[in-house]
């Protein structure tokens, strides 16, 4: 980065820093020049870091009491809830923490979509972020299997059976994933092992995510390139740290609200029934954060087609930086795209809703319309709107949005005040 060379004040600090420049890294992180107009949608990176640490800490504690065996897992979770000191609290933080993690990551992703943070030169940050998102889904899915309730068992059965749709080798792959001829004790064991591993992979990717972020620096609500450091930037500490801390506090209040008042509202009551390989629950649903993809899966009347579209719905995000043809990053200056953006948000919410409903009648119709629109948004809207749209004038800098180019002052203020 562009800061001048950092020299520790103390002799001991200098001695250490010459051998391992950790203090230089610390100085880089505190002085890191940040756009001064970042709004509260930008606080979710910090919130997500908090979520990851929370899941790791509570998870390590839960693993001290949990038993990964088909005959004992369910009872050991109840043991945690009833016998272990504060076990109920730690487990509820962990299970609700997963939901809060996804809530934050969806806001983070949709912020990126609105302000064009995935565009050049930030494609690698975006792609690493998506890899984190994929790992989060894997970790969450495997974590949900561990209590070995009915939803655990049948969720695991349905998700692992997705791989059986692969032509020729599908059944062998599924058997290999199970380590048995159905979801069984070997499956539970390996899921526990991987569930413990994945958060640390995520942690590694988070380091890369932030590293990649610190090369070009943050995008900002106006979406323009800024000089760093300059009148347009403030040091990360204390300006951003205090803003992040405040947002985190509000987030933690909501988090605590779930943990203490409605700890089971996001779960499914069937998961308090021990797993039974002979009976499938009448209505199986995944956790809320996977529902839009579940709706896409069910909207296709063909097994392989459904699986391909479901995975395609995630993987299409990886090429998003190249599907979006607009040179303008922020949707604030893109009047047409902005409208499609909100339609897309509604579309995903609708898919989430129908994903929780039975796959019949009007819900099936809505799921199909929603699925078609989901893909049309990326394959048609993104490239075409980017080419045809007449964008609003873009300010020259964050400090002087009105001096040149004739951008509306009200617009610039709106950006600064957003939320």
């Amino acid at each position, binding site marked *: 980065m562009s800061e001048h060379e950092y020299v520790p004040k103390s002799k001991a600090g200098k001695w250490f820093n010459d051998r391992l420049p950790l203090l230089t890294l610390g100085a880089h992180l505190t002085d890191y020049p940040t756009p001064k107009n970042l709004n509260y949608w930008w606080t979710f990176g910090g919130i997500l870091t908090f979520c990851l640490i929370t899941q790791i800490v509570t998870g390590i504690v839960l693993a001290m009491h949990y038993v990964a065996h088909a005959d004992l897992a369910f009872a050991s979770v109840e043991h945690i809830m009833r016998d272990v000191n504060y076990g109920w609290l730690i487990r509820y933080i962990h299970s609700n923490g997963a939901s809060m993690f996804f809530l934050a990551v969806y806001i983070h992703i949709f912020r990126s979509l609105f302000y064009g943070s995935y565009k050049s030169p930030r494609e690698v940050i975006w792609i690493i972020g998506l890899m984190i998102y994929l790992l989060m889904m894997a970790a969450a899915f495997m974590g949900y299997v561990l209590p070995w309730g009915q939803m655990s068992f*049948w969720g695991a*059965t*349905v998700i*692992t*059976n*997705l791989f*059986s749709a692969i032509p020729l080798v599908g059944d062998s792959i599924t*058997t*290999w*994933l*199970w*380590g*048995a*001829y*159905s*979801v*069984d004790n*070997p499956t539970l064991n*390996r899921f526990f092992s991987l569930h413990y591993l994945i958060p640390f992979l995520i942690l590694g990717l988070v380091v890369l995510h932030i590293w990649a972020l610190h090369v070009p620096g943050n995008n900002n609500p106006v979406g323009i390139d800024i000089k760093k450091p300059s009148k347009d930037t403030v040091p990360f500490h204390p300006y951003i740290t205090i803003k992040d801390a405040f947002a985190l506090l509000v987030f933690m209040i909501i988090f605590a609200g779930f943990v203490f008042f409605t700890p089971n509202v996001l779960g499914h009551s069937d998961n308090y029934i021990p797993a039974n*390989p*002979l*009976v*499938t*629950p*009448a*209505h*199986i649903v995944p956790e809320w954060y996977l529902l839009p993809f579940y709706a896409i899966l*069910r909207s*296709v*009347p*063909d*097994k*392989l087609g*459904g699986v391909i579209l479901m995975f395609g719905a995630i993987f299409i995000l990886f090429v998003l930086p190249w599907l979006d043809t607009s040179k303008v990053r922020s949707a604030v200056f893109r009047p047409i795209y902005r409208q499609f953006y909100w339609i897309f948000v509604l579309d995903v919410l609708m898919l989430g809703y129908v994903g929780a409903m*039975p*796959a*019949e009648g009007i819900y099936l119709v809505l799921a199909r319309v929603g699925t078609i629109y989901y893909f049309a948004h990326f394959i048609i809207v993104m490239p075409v709107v980017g080419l045809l749209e007449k964008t609003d004038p873009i300010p020259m800098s964050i400090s002087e949005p009105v001096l040149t180019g004739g951008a509306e002052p009200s617009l610039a203020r709106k950006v600064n005040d957003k939320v």
Partner: protein
Amino acid sequence: MSKEEKKVNRRDFLFTASYTIGAVGVGAVIWPMIDQMNPDKAQQALATTEVDISSIEPGKSITVLWRGKPIFIKKRTSDEIAEARAVKLDDLPDPQKDEDRVKDGKDEWLVMLGVCTHLGCVPLKDKGDFNGWFCPCHGSHYDVSGRIRKGPAPTNMEIPKFEFVDSNTIKIG
């Protein structure tokens, strides 16, 4: 660059040989790491089950567990058999004669894997539009022969390998 350097020399040979041996070595280590996830000896040991079917009334079925999966054993009535055989093959997404799904001379006994071929749920009996099974997960309808008729499942419910040990006992697997 002189032409001499482009000729294959001892060093090139050593590189190629090292890479080849290295690749074989890596493969030899990776394969056990992958194969350890396949079903182990204990899982494979559970590969057959014998079931007493003497108490099943016509029109009724039982469910037994085989290799962690449910097996439906249904004693069909002559009406049900007739119904299954009256279906035209053209109406089936996965055409298969009812005769090919049962043992010769034991037409009343339908023994099949009670696992929906879509995503592995257990279908409910005596439900659905075709007087057979209905999968609650994603809405697949099966007929009285366990053949897929409507819904996302791609194939008929699977018939496992089984045999009649005597008239009252079958061995699955």
